[in-house]
């Protein structure tokens, strides 16, 4: 059995989580402590992938990332590559698709930390950015763990949006979920079983790990 799809899925999930932690942390912080009137609409926007059919997201991403699209067009002009049907296109799609799974636990963890420890840090001479990294982030540690694990697991399970944006190019965009679908199409149930069971067990273990950690210490983001 060809294990390349597993490798691509793991790569996609890892890259997506890293990008999401970098972009999602400031966003989550802003959602947690910000006072802008844009906070509520942005909060709702972040949650959108939770309720949207993946095909809707995939459809719009296809338009945005396509060679004539507002993102895909300039990308093609600069790099000479198309974003659709490429690994990079998958990463962009996955980042949007898994956004709430990373941002929401972080936002709740930062809310749980509250303003108190940051005020205390300021009183000891810590600049705001210093206080953020040396106090708020460590105190929200469990939230980071939850966010990373959920983002990773959810990206692994992605199907609809990826199929629309990435298709199924072996070695490039064929991830586990799509490989399973194609094994079933070609009636290769044995391979479909192996991959499905693997994904099932992996997802269960991930959730078990999070719930165990959250039960042990009651700080940071809850699922």
């Amino acid at each position, binding site marked *: 059995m060809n294990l390349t799809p597993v490798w691509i899925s793991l790569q996609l999930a890892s890259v997506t989580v890293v990008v999401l932690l970098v972009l999602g942390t400031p966003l989550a912080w802003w959602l947690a402590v910000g006072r802008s009137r844009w906070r509520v609409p942005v909060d709702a926007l972040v949650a959108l992938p939770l309720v949207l059919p993946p095909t809707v997201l995939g459809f719009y991403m296809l338009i945005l990332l396509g060679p004539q699209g507002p993102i895909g067009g300039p990308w093609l002009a600069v790099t000479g590559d198309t974003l659709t049907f490429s690994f990079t296109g998958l990463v962009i799609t996955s980042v949007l698709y898994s956004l709430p799974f990373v941002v929401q636990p972080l936002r709740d963890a930062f809310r749980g930390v509250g303003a108190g420890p940051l*005020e*205390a*840090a*300021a*009183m*000891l001479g*810590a600049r705001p950015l210093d206080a953020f990294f040396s106090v708020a982030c460590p*105190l929200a540690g469990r939230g980071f763990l939850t966010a990373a694990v959920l983002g990773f697991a959810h990206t692994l399970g992605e199907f609809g949006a990826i199929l629309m944006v990435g298709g199924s190019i072996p070695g490039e965009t064929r991830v586990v979920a799509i490989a399973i679908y194609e094994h079933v199409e070609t009636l290769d149930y044995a391979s479909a079983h192996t991959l499905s069971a693997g994904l099932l067990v992996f997802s269960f273990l991930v959730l078990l790990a999070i719930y165990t950690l959250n039960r042990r210490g009651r700080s940071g983001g809850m699922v």
Partner: protein
Amino acid sequence: MSEPFLTFELQLRRHGFLLQAEGRLEPGITALFGPSGCGKTTLLRCLAGLEKASEGMIRHDDSVWQTPSFRLPPHRRPVGLVFQDTRLFAHLSVAQNFEFARRRRRAEGPDQQEVVEVLGVAGLLDRMPAALSGGEAQRVALGRALLAGPRVLLMDEPLAGLDHERRARIMPLVRAIPERFGVPLLYVTHARQEVLALADRVMLMDRGEILAHDTVADMFSAPAFWPALGGMEPTVVWDASVVARDNDWGLTVLASDAGRLRLAGISCDMGTRLRLLVAARDVVLTLDPPMASSALNGLPVRVESLEDRGNGLVLVRLTAGRRAPLWAEVSRQSAAALRLAPGRRVHALIRPQRLGGPH
């Protein structure tokens, strides 16, 4: 050396509450005293720079912390704030909490060894904040604030959540801070006993305003402030210092504005400053100097005025020594028998209570 002063003139409007406070923080310990919700904590937060909506002026020494057009951010003000809920960093051990403050100090600060010793926290250094008792956490929070090298220290009801015994153990530590570490202390409390035991001066606050600012002795001896001080019984507070010991009888001799006083049951070094409280009902007036009495202290006093309190009692205002005020509560019959009237000289037998630790 003249110590720098913190002067402020602040306004803050919020949800129908108006803070309008003006004052100057003197060396030593100043208690910010008033009922719950009168704005004590808010004023502290304004001084620390944590209330962004505050307006007005704050000056410290020759540096400006706030003007109508400028605001020094909290992390750049050389001020320490000990929060009521300690706010120790839960992810850092006690030693790491200290380290956090020491690495970010804005000016020369005390030696960690000294702070650890004074506060008695050497045995706690490896613990996590969650493993500390309330009193331990407060001592650590105080140490952390000192290690940041503040020039002004603010404390927000640090003893409010502690039982009597722990309070009694921490108060002498707080009392020693201004002298030991050279910082003036503004101490928020709504407990009268803490003011009497700790403070040199009081800022009396109510409904967002500072009503009065004076020494503890003067404020607690003035009838006008008794209601605001929590319905005080007529009382005077005298500050005194140890000038001699009478070893034959185990007595300590104190000098005060009221004259020399003798106290049993205390042992203090010469020069130690003590604070005494004399309640009006612990004062007995006689015409003649006492020959033999179980009251140790008899003082010649002068009657200043009389006030009929109803229910058969008369409150007599007296002066002891050169200028020490004293109140006596006597029955109307006794007042008549003693022929008390302004200007009359009589003798007072008093039973002073000693307050708190050394002052």
